[in-house]
């Protein structure tokens, strides 16, 4: 489903963020990408939705090279990939309802579908009562749950989570991981970049370890070993 083929990314300053990585991920997998800060985890994930273009090598999504996609194909692909970030990246001037509706609108959903889907997905993440609040009126944990709701509302094939628990306390961290596990159980492939040892060890799924841009371990049922 996802395949990185000898991918290298060198930024303008000559810094090698990712070096010669080959990695395959099957549909329905839950994959942790672990490593210290600056190991190249974020760059690796960003290449999947073409926010970063590899210097050399190719990234495939559903057997198609992302680099060869036209602009409209790329947008269509992005609507099929949910993204969650450490800093939530919600639209601050839109209500929670509008934030989630936006993802549905760009995917071409009609108003009736949106009216039905948004409350449903907010119920899933336990925020049905915050529908008309603005992001800044919510706590960090709540904002991250809104981001998850936005990421899954289009029922994407892949969910990318880049340090989703980095700004959260242990209780909220646990909640977010539980939601991600539930989503994975429903068939969505989950890629989760983190350096939180406890969540990696507690879930017991595939762990890809990176160090200085290189892939140094790939364990089917791994632990955090750095």
């Amino acid at each position, binding site marked *: 489903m996802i395949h990185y083929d000898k991918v290298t990314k060198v930024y303008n300053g000559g810094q090698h963020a990712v070096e010669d990585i080959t990695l395959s991920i099957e549909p329905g997998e839950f994959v942790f990408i672990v490593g210290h800060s600056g190991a190249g985890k974020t760059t690796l994930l960003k290449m999947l939705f073409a*926010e970063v273009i590899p210097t050399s090598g190719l990234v495939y999504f559903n057997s198609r090279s992302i680099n060869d996609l036209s602009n409209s194909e790329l947008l*269509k692909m992005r609507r099929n990939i949910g*993204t969650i970030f450490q800093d939530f*990246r919600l*639209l601050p001037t839109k209500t929670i309802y509008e934030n989630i509706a*936006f*993802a549905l609108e760009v995917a071409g959903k009609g108003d009736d579908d949106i009216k039905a889907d948004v409350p449903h997905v907010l119920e899933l993440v336990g925020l049905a009562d915050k529908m008309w609040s603005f992001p800044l009126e919510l706590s960090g944990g709540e904002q991250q749950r809104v981001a998850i709701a936005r990421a899954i509302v289009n029922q994407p094939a892949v969910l990318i989570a880049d340090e989703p628990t980095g700004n959260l306390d242990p209780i909220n961290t646990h909640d977010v991981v539980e939601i991600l596990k539930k989503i994975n159980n429903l068939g969505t492939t989950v890629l989760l970049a983190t350096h939180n040892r406890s969540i990696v060890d507690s879930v017991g799924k595939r762990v890809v370890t990176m160090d200085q841009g290189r892939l140094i371990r790939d364990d089917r049922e791994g632990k955090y070993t750095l």
Partner: protein
Amino acid sequence: MSLWLNIKRVARYGLIGFIRNGFVSLAAISIMTLTLFVISGLMIFGSALNATLVQLTQKVDVKVYFTTNSTDAEITDVQKMLESLPEVASVSFMSRDDALAQFRERHKNDQLTIQALDELKDNPLGASLEVRAKQTSQYEAIAKFLSTQQSSGTIAGSSIDKVNFYQNKTAIDRLTNIIDTTRRLGTIVSIIMGLASLLIAFNTIRLAIYTSRDEIGVMNIVGASRWYVRGPFMITGILYGFVSGLIVLILLYPITLYISAPLQRFLGTFNAFAYYAGSFPIIFFVIMASGIALGALSSYLAVRRYLHT
């Protein structure tokens, strides 16, 4: 998805952005209002300048005096010749009797002159033609034409007594110079002021959109098309222009009313309020079109900077 649904959503988000970012909207509208004021000011200035220069131009003419024994036919011949020249705007005739009446009127308090005039048996004044050129620089050509006629020996030509252009040449030349320089300076000042205010407004909108750059990035990642990201910002920009235009058009009413009298004392015939009232459709179009185009274009360019797909 239907185009109509997209347009509806883009318009709604544009309006929501305008209202929810109240402070940013207020700042953008303030600057755009100033910009549109400068543009309307330049329009009024240009029109005032034009009216004043036209008025000055109309004060200049060339008079052709005929000998007292010239016949009406000879004068009509010269008048027709003058009217056929492309440089000539108008030619008006003054008969001998009219000239005398005018002379008497002008000197009615000067008993000595009137007595001297009464002692003459015949009217000493000749008929004359008052020639106005389309531009002040063309008087010389007209005067030359008349001199050629005068020296050509034709009957009509020899009836010309004198042409007053050469007495007034220096004054006319100087006035032509002043008019040309003022027009050129006016154009340059207008262009510089116009460009400067456009740049300021453009930068204000860019700054307003700069605050939303992260939001644009998120929209990109969620898979929104360029127009779906850009559209609401452009609608917001258009609203800035529309509201600013409305403010300017409303405020121009009391302002032109207030400045009309002092301006008229200074410039002569030009009336700012009459210009505002009389040219309202043009002013409305220019101000609204500038505001809306400026808002839309600035937003378009500013968002483009943050669109990565």
